[in-house]
């Protein structure tokens, strides 16, 4: 009797043992099954073409390995590469300075004015570049609303309106779209700083510029750098807006050159070499971004 019970228990134990092992091995491979489709999509439809752009940039028209595409790219598009870099740096710089000022204002100022600024500024974040492109085309045109307005204020000669379908309009549109996004991120960082720091600084006589440069900016350096990185990288790769604003005129950003190379010449070698130049432009900041996100944990 006692033996039987023992046996039964042993059998039961054994069964439990088996039962535990099965879900165990199943749990072991479960994560891989779950991430597999997403990883495959990215590997096939992102990473493979991403690596192909490097590879194809070294294949000449005759199909041999050479630097011919780079030679041609630098010969024809040298100036456009510098133009892209210049406009992107300028836009990112203006957006950063402007957004820090607005974020400081929103952090330190109370009242209905700052409250309404705090809500309204978000609007451009949600608009796609293709809409912004059309908006800026009608706003910045030689006979557009901005020139009309400036002419009515007698700031410009009505017969001689400002020509803005160039780096100026491009920078204006970039800043219009990206500064609000930077404000959003930087504001989030500023909110984390306790009022007591600012009050302590004030009580020992710190003025506003010191509060900005000694407390708000240093304590939010990582946040600001991430904002700068995201904006810079997305502006280097922005295609729709320069394409619709400047189009076939020169100088233009390299994203537009890539489209022209493909559409008019079917020249994938030079198009890919231009693409590699755009990768190189963002590489330093992109590596910084990937590293800091890995350290922070992507979603914690």
């Amino acid at each position, binding site marked *: 009797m006692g033996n039987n019970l023992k046996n039964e228990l042993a059998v039961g134990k054994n069964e439990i043992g088996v039962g535990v092992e099965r879900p165990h091995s199943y749990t072991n491979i479960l994560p891989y099954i779950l*991430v597999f489709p*997403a990883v495959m999509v990215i590997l096939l439809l*992102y990473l493979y073409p991403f690596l192909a752009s490097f590879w194809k940039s070294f294949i000449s028209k005759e199909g041999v390995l050479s630097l011919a595409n780079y030679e041609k790219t630098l010969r024809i598009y040298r100036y456009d590469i510098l133009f892209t870099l210049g406009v992107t740096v300028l836009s990112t710089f203006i957006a950063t300075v402007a957004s820090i000022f607005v974020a400081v204002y929103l952090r330190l100022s109370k009242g209905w004015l700052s409250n309404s600024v705090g809500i309204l500024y978000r609007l451009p974040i949600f608009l796609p570049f293709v809409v912004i492109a059309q*908006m800026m085309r*009608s706003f910045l045109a030689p*006979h557009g609303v901005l020139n009309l307005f400036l002419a009515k204020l007698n700031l410009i000669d009505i017969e001689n309106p400002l020509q803005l379908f160039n780096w100026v309009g491009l920078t204006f549109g970039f800043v219009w779209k990206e500064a609000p996004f930077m404000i959003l*991120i930087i504001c989030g960082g500023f909110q984390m700083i306790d009022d007591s720091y600012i009050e302590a600084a004030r009580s020992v006589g710190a003025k506003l510029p010191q509060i900005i440069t000694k407390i708000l900016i240093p304590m939010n350096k990582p946040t600001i750098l991430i904002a700068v990185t995201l904006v810079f990288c997305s502006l280097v790769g922005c295609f*729709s807006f320069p*394409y619709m604003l400047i189009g076939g005129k020169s100088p233009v950003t390299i994203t537009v050159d890539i489209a022209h190379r493909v559409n008019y010449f079917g020249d994938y070698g030079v198009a890919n070499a231009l693409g590699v130049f755009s990768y190189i432009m963002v590489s330093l900041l992109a590596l910084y971004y990937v590293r800091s996100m890995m350290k922070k944990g992507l*979603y914690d």
Partner: protein
Amino acid sequence: MQKSFFRKTIEIIIFTVFIFFLFAPLLSLGIWSVALRWYWPHTLPQKIGFDYWLQALGITKSLTLGAVNVVPAFLLSLGIAIIVVIITMAIAIPAGYALAKLKIPALLKGIILILFLLPRAFPQQPVFLNLMLMFNKIGLTGTVLGVIFVHIVVGLVFAVWITASTFSSIPPELEEAARSVGATRLKAFFKVTLPISTPGLIASAVFVFLTSMDEFTGTFFVGLPFVTTLPMTLYSASGSNIQFASVIAILLLIPSILFMIVIQKFLKAEHLGGMGG
């Protein structure tokens, strides 16, 4: 007293300039969409009306140069976006759950995370260009299916991030509690984790929907000239007819603004930068 008055004046002047630059481009779009006749340099159009709206929406026939009926393009964009949302979320939810909740060896997890960070950091246009070359070989260029694939890639990166961050914000104790009273992992997921994470998952789905509706660069390479989504019709109207282009632009910005106002509180600030490349 005088100093504070001075400061208030400065604040109001800066506020006015801010409002002008924020809203004047939008206003310009709105005025142009109803301007039937607007000669330079008149402050406002001489003749306004909704004629272009009616023509664009296919309510009245039009012989105007560059006139397009945007309804088919809108329906195409909508259809593509709905399919993209369904497929993308079906792929992203399991992946996000595994990354946030399950044990994956550190090295492999690191590689997966880098894989999902690259598209955010590097320009995507050269990738689309080579995707087009890939699709050329298998006959997907210029097809709706090809465009759907491109939109999935664009949306998936954000969807995985957002779902992963949604799942990781749920305390593991909840699911453990459900399992300790006998629920299987699957049951615990469907009865506990999924209902709590619904707002985050909906936010993620809306985000994917909008990236698909607004997608330009990938569709330009893979879809044109046969797949004309709403952004593509905006691009082609833009060069020929400013009123039609303005109408389409407004049609495109309405869903963006409406949805984002509703869901933005469920999204991290960094993700919002992914809107409409």
